């Protein structure tokens, strides 16, 4: 009996570790979700019309790295939404841990920075967990294939957070350009350095 208990405990711990570490990677099928946007409407990816895919960005109001990338995310939306790949930004931070990331502050940020893309609140943090997002910013490029959302790219927007003009590897743009040409994405995963997601304290 003791032995079984030990084995099941070990299995539980393993499962915990696996779920904590697993992250969508290229080729995986991503889940859709229904989250509240800054206008108070609940939005699913499937509800957004005329899309071939999405640039899903785990995002927030407070992280200095997000702020560095703010203009670049808006530029991605301006360039690729009309080509079928709009940006959908998601704030997964717990406002109890990070008060600047509350829903009200999201509304302020979206209005102040004039976000043209959806900015959604992942209040339960389920979407961030399911996607395996670790930081903000953290980018997932998804494409519709046979009614499913297939992951094409996971990681950073480019390779210079400090200075956009010094970035010489534009991972997200390169991936999108390949997708639009029907070519394979050459760099389908990078590590995204940023602010750790502020998880709820259990």
């Amino acid at each position, binding site marked *: 009996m003791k032995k079984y208990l030990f084995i099941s405990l070990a299995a539980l711990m393993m499962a915990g570790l696996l779920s904590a570490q697993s*992250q969508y990677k290229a080729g995986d099928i991503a889940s859709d979700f229904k989250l509240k946007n800054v206008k108070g409407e609940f939005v699913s990816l499937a509800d957004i019309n005329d899309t071939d895919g999405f640039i899903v960005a785990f995002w927030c109001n407070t*992280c*200095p*790295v997000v702020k*560095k990338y703010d203009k670049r995310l808006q530029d991605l939306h301006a360039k690729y939404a009309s080509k079928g790949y709009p940006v959908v930004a998601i704030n997964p931070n717990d406002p109890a841990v990070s008060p600047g990331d509350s829903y009200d502050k999201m509304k302020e940020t979206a209005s102040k920075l004039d976000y043209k893309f959806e900015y959604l609140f992942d209040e339960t943090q389920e979407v961030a967990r399911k996607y395996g997002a*670790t*930081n903000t910013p953290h980018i997932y490029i998804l494409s519709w294939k046979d009614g499913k959302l297939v992951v094409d790219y996971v*990681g*950073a927007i480019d*390779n*210079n*957070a*400090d*200075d956009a003009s*010094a970035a010489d*590897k534009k991972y997200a743009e390169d991936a999108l350009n390949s997708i639009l040409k029907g070519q394979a994405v050459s760099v389908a995963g*990078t*590590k*995204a*350095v*940023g*602010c*750790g997601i502020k998880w709820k304290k259990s």
Partner: protein
Amino acid sequence: MRILLAALISITAGLASLQAQKIEKIGIPELEKILASPADELHVVNFWATWCPPCVTELPYFEKLAGEYQGKGVRFILISLDFPSQIETKLIPFLEKNKISAEVKVMTNLDYNSWIEKVDEGWQGNIPVTLFFNNATKKRYFHPSELTEKELRDLITKHK
């Protein structure tokens, strides 16, 4: 008078070199050199930034233990990922305000994906993380998240 002047100059130069030493800018070659250090001592290498609140929370523990372990076979290196454009405006004022005297270096290569896996293949890009190693005894442990003071102390005892 001349002696006084000389003393003043050497003090100023000393302070300047102390400052320069405190915040050496490094790239991949210097990082590789640290990681390959043959010295028979426990290296505790923490990756952090002033913009990362959990990093800022744990930094005093490293400072405190660096003091306690001075000359006792443990070398602490705090590698900051602060943006190069904010070294003067954010990082140095932070170090001065918090009286950090431990060894601090700034990683100025922002092409993270070209070096993150040199530190550890399991590193997801989050900070803080801390690498403990002694190449002479082939000990190595990568801690993928923040630490409490007790956890840091216990890990040093365990790997020393």
